[in-house]
């Protein structure tokens, strides 16, 4: 059963009417004409006070009676085989309750410094740390390779030296047609081509009126979330496990624990009441989670197992490095004609270093050839990190575009305009350029005469709309009028808790303070994982639908009180009234007091969007102003103007916060952060937050963030995500501003003083 609705869709105030069929029980989608009380406004975080006063309890703050502390013994070698483990000394150490190996079977290999070998549980954290040092591990030490360029050499020690026996021939197994070659430490290439072969692409680039070539390098960046990875695991009995986890997905983490420990999913509960950031590195049960649950089982005590900062850098994941060979060709007007990009990168012992997506998706270019290869090194495994591959790819692609613009004597913004027809992007250019004062920029490079030179640059973001389905949102209305919204979704710091309350308050005409949000608990029903910038887009339609259903229920309760039919009842400002007649009204609580049985509950699921799984780009543009000291090489980012879109904005306040955070992380990536491994031993030399440099308060530029409204009507809220797009363009924009200031292009991240001076020399 469907109903016909007409809604206003479009970008900002450029709206047009669209006819849409929606299921009969769905609310009419919010559109560009709706004047809403909370949605699109600025609501402070519901948990803000609890967070700043320390009342909010994170996984790290959990203290349970009888709780033990877990710690790993980790490999000091970048490549070795664990031959034997002697626990006797550790077991005799004060406070120690259990010691367990990381892997069931010996021998097993370790492939990076810091890889988990064994776990210990003791009464205090200090006892666990000291006992971990007493575990005697016999290693057979092997050759290793930690630098990308070395690992690519023919005679490099192999990170993965155990060959799989050739099983069934490819083609016998469905999916095997996508098998990637692996030669030495190089796995790949993963090839993407559009109307060009590898043989053709160079001549296509060469035939262009103007070409840009560059070899770009980006470093390894660690996630460095404020709260480190970890869990507290507690067996309620042999068959029931409760885990407090600093995770980006309560529900899937529950599934992992259930599968790993062969329990029914119903017997596992994962709780994430508050969470101190993840940036893509916190999915699933993880090493420490499994170890904590095992230690908890044998000791019959809750086990606290959080990583320290050093472990976080070693083994908590990272943004892989990259080495990108870029060739771009454009015509006289600046229109891209051919793109060639070959990249190698290292995600340590794992895969996933590709940077090709921005090349494939940012600009429509008919001829494209992209090869992406992983290079294995004896270093901690990469993990998804805030727009995987994108800040790296944009750093290269957008400098190439900038280069083309300067070669053609074009305004760098103009060349972007000529390479897009995306309505949202063009609107963002207009708003951003105006706010930044782009038209006042000096078209000349290195125009300042003193040693300290100012420059401006810009770069695009590109990301995609993802969402999952099935998430049930539950609303419970009680006889005293209190309203509870329940779902297992975790708030990883982005503010979804507040958004949920805003939606319910909006739909029911209540004050936000009257809505109680219960989230972060797998017992409350599956919520979206917070990855791919899909939390808000994933859960809000279910929440709105549940609120809409709750409203129908309350109409049914209220109708007899007014002597009208349920459709005639409206709710506004905490009161029920007959639509069109506000003169007589009843308080929400008065109506609720008549709920049969004293409570009702409605559940709504996240369904597919009205247009199905339509591929949609999320845009975004950032403009940066820098000051480059050409004598010391020090770069200061003075100002960033960011304009982003994420469908219909829910809470502008927390959205801007996320954009600000993305820019700060981008500045930090551009100028400072660098995981540095000792070339002789494979040890990270800066596993702290002192020598692993992260932007501090004085390094943060003046930031002006704007979120524009994009009304699509693809579901009842039209919300999309911002987490990832916000950090994609920053390093590229800064690099382009450095070029404008100095006339020197920096091909290598981070853009530290020594590299600036070398480029200027």
């Amino acid at each position, binding site marked *: 059963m469907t109903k016909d609705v007409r809604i206003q869709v479009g970008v900002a105030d450029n709206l047009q009417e669209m006819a849409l069929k929606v299921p009969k029980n769905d609310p009419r989608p919010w559109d560009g004409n709706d004047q809403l009380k909370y949605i699109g406004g600025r609501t402070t975080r519901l948990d803000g006070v609890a967070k700043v006063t320390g009342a909010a309890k994170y996984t790290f703050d959990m203290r349970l009676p009888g709780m033990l502390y877990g710690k790993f013994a980790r490999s*000091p070698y970048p490549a070795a085989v664990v031959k034997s483990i002697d626990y006797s000394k550790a077991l005799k150490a004060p406070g120690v309750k259990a010691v367990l190996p990381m892997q069931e079977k010996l021998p097993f290999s370790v492939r990076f410094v810091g890889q988990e070998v064994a776990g210990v549980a003791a009464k205090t954290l*200090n006892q666990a*740390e000291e006992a971990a040092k007493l575990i005697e591990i016999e290693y057979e030490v092997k050759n290793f390779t930690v630098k990308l360029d070395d690992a690519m050499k023919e005679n490099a020690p192999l990170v993965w030296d155990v060959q799989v026996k050739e099983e069934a021939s490819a083609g016998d197994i469905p999916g095997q047609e996508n098998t990637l070659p692996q030669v030495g430490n190089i796995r790949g290439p993963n090839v993407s081509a559009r109307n060009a072969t590898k043989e053709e692409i160079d001549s296509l680039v060469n035939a262009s009126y103007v070409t840009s070539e560059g070899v770009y390098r980006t470093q390894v960046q660690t996630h460095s979330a404020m709260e480190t990875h970890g869990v507290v695991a507690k067996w309620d009995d042999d068959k029931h496990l409760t885990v407090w986890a600093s995770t980006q997905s309560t529900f899937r983490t529950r599934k992992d624990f259930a599968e790993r420990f062969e329990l029914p999913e119903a017997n596992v509960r994962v709780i994430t009441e508050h969470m101190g950031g993840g940036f893509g590195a916190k999915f699933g049960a993880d090493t420490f989670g499994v170890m904590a649950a095992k230690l908890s089982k044998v000791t019959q005590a809750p086990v606290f197992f959080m990583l320290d900062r050093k472990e976080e850098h070693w083994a908590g994941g990272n943004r892989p490095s990259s080495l990108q060979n870029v060739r771009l060709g454009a015509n006289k007007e600046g229109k891209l004609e051919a793109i060639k990009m070959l990249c190698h990168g290292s995600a340590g012992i794992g895969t996933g270093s590709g940077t090709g997506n921005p090349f494939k998706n940012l600009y429509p270019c008919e001829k494209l050839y992209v090869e992406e290869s992983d290079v294995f090194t004896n270093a901690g495994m990469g993990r998804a990190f805030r727009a995987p591959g994108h800040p790296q790819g944009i750093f290269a692609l957008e400098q190439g575009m900038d280069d083309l613009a300067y070669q053609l004597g074009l305004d760098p913004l103009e060349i972007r305009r000529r390479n897009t027809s995306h309505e949202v992007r063009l609107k963002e250019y207009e708003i951003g350029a105006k706010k930044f004062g782009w038209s006042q920029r000096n078209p000349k490079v290195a125009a300042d*005469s*003193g*040693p*300290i030179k100012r420059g401006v640059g810009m770069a695009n973001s590109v990301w995609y709309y993802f969402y999952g389905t099935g998430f049930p949102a539950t609303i419970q209305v009680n006889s005293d009028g209190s309203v509870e919204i329940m779902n297992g979704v975790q708030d990883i710091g982005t503010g979804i808790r507040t958004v949920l309350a805003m939606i319910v308050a909006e739909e029911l005409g209540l004050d936000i303070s009257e809505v109680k949000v219960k989230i972060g608990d797998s017992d409350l029903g599956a919520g979206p994982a917070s990855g791919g910038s899909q939390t808000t887009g994933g859960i809000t339609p279910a929440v709105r639908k549940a609120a809409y259903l709750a409203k129908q229920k309350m109409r049914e309760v209220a109708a007899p009180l007014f002597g009208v039919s349920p459709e005639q009842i409206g709710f506004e400002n905490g009161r029920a009234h007959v639509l069109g007649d506000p003169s007589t009204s009843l308080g929400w609580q008065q109506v609720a007091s008549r709920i049969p049985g004293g409570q009702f509950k409605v559940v709504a699921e996240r369904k597919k969007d009205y247009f199905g799984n339509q591929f949609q780009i999320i845009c975004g543009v950032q403009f940066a102003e820098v000051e480059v*000291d050409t*004598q*010391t*090489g*020090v770069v*200061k980012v003075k100002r960033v103007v960011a304009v982003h879109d994420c469908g219909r904005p829910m809470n502008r306040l927390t959205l801007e916060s996320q954009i600000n955070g993305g820019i700060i992380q981008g500045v930090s990536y551009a*100028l*400072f952060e660098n995981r*540095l491994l*000792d*070339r*002789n*031993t494979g*040890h990270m*030399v*800066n596993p702290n937050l*002192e*020598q692993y*440099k992260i*932007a*501090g*308060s*004085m*390094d943060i530029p003046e930031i002006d963030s704007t979120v524009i409204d994009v009304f699509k009507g693809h579901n009842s809220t039209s919300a999309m995500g911002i987490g990832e797009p916000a950090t994609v363009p920053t390093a590229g924009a800064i690099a382009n501003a450095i070029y404008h200031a100095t006339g020197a292009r920096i091909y290598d991240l981070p853009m*530290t*003083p*020594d*590299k600036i*001076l*070398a480029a200027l*020399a």
Partner: protein
Amino acid sequence: MNKFEYAMPQDIPQALSSVQHSGAVFKAGGVDLLDLMKEGIIAPSRLVHINNIEALKVISRTKDGGLALGANLTIAEIAELRELSGAHQALPQAAGSTATPQIRNLATLGGNLCQETRCWYFRDQNFSCSHKGGSQCFALQGENYYHALFDNKSGCVRVNASSISIALVALGAKLRITSAESSRDVSVAEFLVAPSQDIEKTHILERGEIIEAIILPASKPHQRSFYYKQKEKQSFDWPVAEVAVSWVQKGGVCENPTVILGAAAPTPWRSKKAEAVLAGQKITKKLAEKAAQAAMSEATPLSQNANRAKVFEAVIARVISWAGGVDPLQEGK
């Protein structure tokens, strides 16, 4: 971290007696000490907390007009001490750019001078390096961008971490070192130990000795000084280059210059070459650049830090200019 006793003496004799216990060390602000303990670099059996000792917080004039600063004055207090403006400003400039406001509120002048190098191999217990009694310097063939540009041929290429020591050496300061039996004054330059003297030692303080005060000589007429720390980040960061200078300047002419470089060598590095360029000359931007070049002509960069020498050259020239009252950032030549 190991278990330890904690002693809280109320005066210097009690402190000196308490520290005689084997494995005992003094703890003032505890900033560096606790870092070293947490990293497993040291494992003292007793911490003698000396922050309660009032005698170590005194500021007094010496007989010859100098200034004695109690060793337990905090870095924050030094940064704001009115007596240190003018000729001695390099000291509060160094103090004010040390670490973070939180650390400056706790860290002390004496503790700052005794701190260990930030060398990442020294700070990692997995590396048995020469400064810790091991057989090799891992930085020499390792990751050494932040390591020494001078005096790096003696088997340890660490750099001294104390910004304050750079300013104090430039100002010719001394330390009053007291033991149960006696008291002696040594210059800050002599207090800090280079690898060529003793590769494992950082300073000359022996067990049973305490730094009582830091003594600044009376300033000379027309004396001036300047300190600047160049960081990569603007927030908390260690220097990539730091310079302290002091001289007497009459009619624009520089007399008796001292030019001291920090983050450059295992101990504060005095550039006699730069001093020779400046002595008896009128300070100009050009002269400052010449002195900076002279200073860096002696540098012996390691495998990865030649570009840091260039940063240094710019910073030396600027500090000389600033001290001499010349604007090094003015446009044009």
